[in-house]
């Protein structure tokens, strides 16, 4: 049972581009880049949902995703500006963008209820993957205390998003 959970977690982790070898520790500029990229990807997906969906629950959820993830980006941008850190593109952020492009293509090909279900299923899986990445990689790797603290304060937001997405997922069934 535990083995199965681990396998599922690893699949989710790598599907969205968060797979990272244990030895390759991310630097703070790289963590900043991953954080901004991960938030922007979810904003882009939500904007797509606003264009394609007519379901009020989906539209409300998408609106929340845009507002919350933009708020996190703003806070992260303010912090890196204060710390004089320039976000550095890296293999994880590149992988995230590449996988997001595939996901966008897949979502774009759907419409109606099929789109709604695919979008919310993706949101559930994406937030699970992001929570795992923030908890197991970004927070432990962060060197600056303020950056680590910001990442820790993002965790409850992500968990709430996951619960919200799961609630919408049940409503669509």
């Amino acid at each position: 049972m535990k083995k199965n959970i681990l396998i599922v977690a690893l699949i989710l982790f790598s599907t969205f581009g968060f797979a990272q070898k244990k030895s390759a520790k991310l630097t703070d500029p790289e963590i900043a880049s991953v954080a901004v990229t991960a938030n922007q990807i979810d904003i882009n997906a939500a904007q797509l949902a606003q264009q394609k969906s007519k379901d009020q629950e989906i539209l409300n959820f998408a609106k929340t995703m845009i507002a919350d993830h933009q708020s996190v980006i703003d806070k992260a941008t303010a912090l890196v500006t204060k710390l004089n850190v320039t976000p550095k593109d890296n293999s994880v952020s590149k992988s995230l963008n590449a996988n997001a492009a595939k996901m966008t293509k897949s979502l774009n090909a759907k419409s109606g209820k099929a789109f709604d279900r695919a979008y919310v299923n993706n949101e559930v899986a994406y937030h699970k993957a992001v929570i795992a990445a923030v908890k197991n990689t970004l927070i432990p790797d962060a060197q600056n205390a303020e950056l680590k603290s910001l990442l820790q304060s993002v965790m409850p937001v992500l968990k709430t998003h996951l619960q919200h997405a799961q609630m919408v997922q049940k409503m669509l069934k």
Partner: protein
Amino acid sequence: MRLNRIGLTSNIILLGGLLIIIGCSRPDTNATSNSTAIATDTSLYELNNKDLLKKPVTINRAHGDHYAAVDIRDMKFNPETVMVNKGDTIEWMNDDLTAHCITESGKHWTSGPIASGASWVKVISENADYYCAIHLVMKGHIGVR
């Protein structure tokens, strides 16, 4: 004569400043139907900071003085259940990263969005269940003793 003019000018500036402060201190008037229940008593606010105009309004009243506070932090209302007497004021302070709102479960009243770092106050007249309409999983309860 010149001194008088300076004195008059100062008074006008002070009066203008006071009016601006009172105007900015009023609670969100965008609240829905039950907005009359929202506290409009500007004496609730302690105006002791020159930077107040740039910052969210803060109420520094002690707990129990017809006042209770609910801290919004880590996507939770703390405490989730707040007990007050009829006519008491509750202040919800948003110490989270994101905007939140306080919406009565029957949608009879709502705060509208409360930005990160801002707060909202309401005079309580009856029991109420409420939730954040932005984050549906966040729920709280007001109990009147």
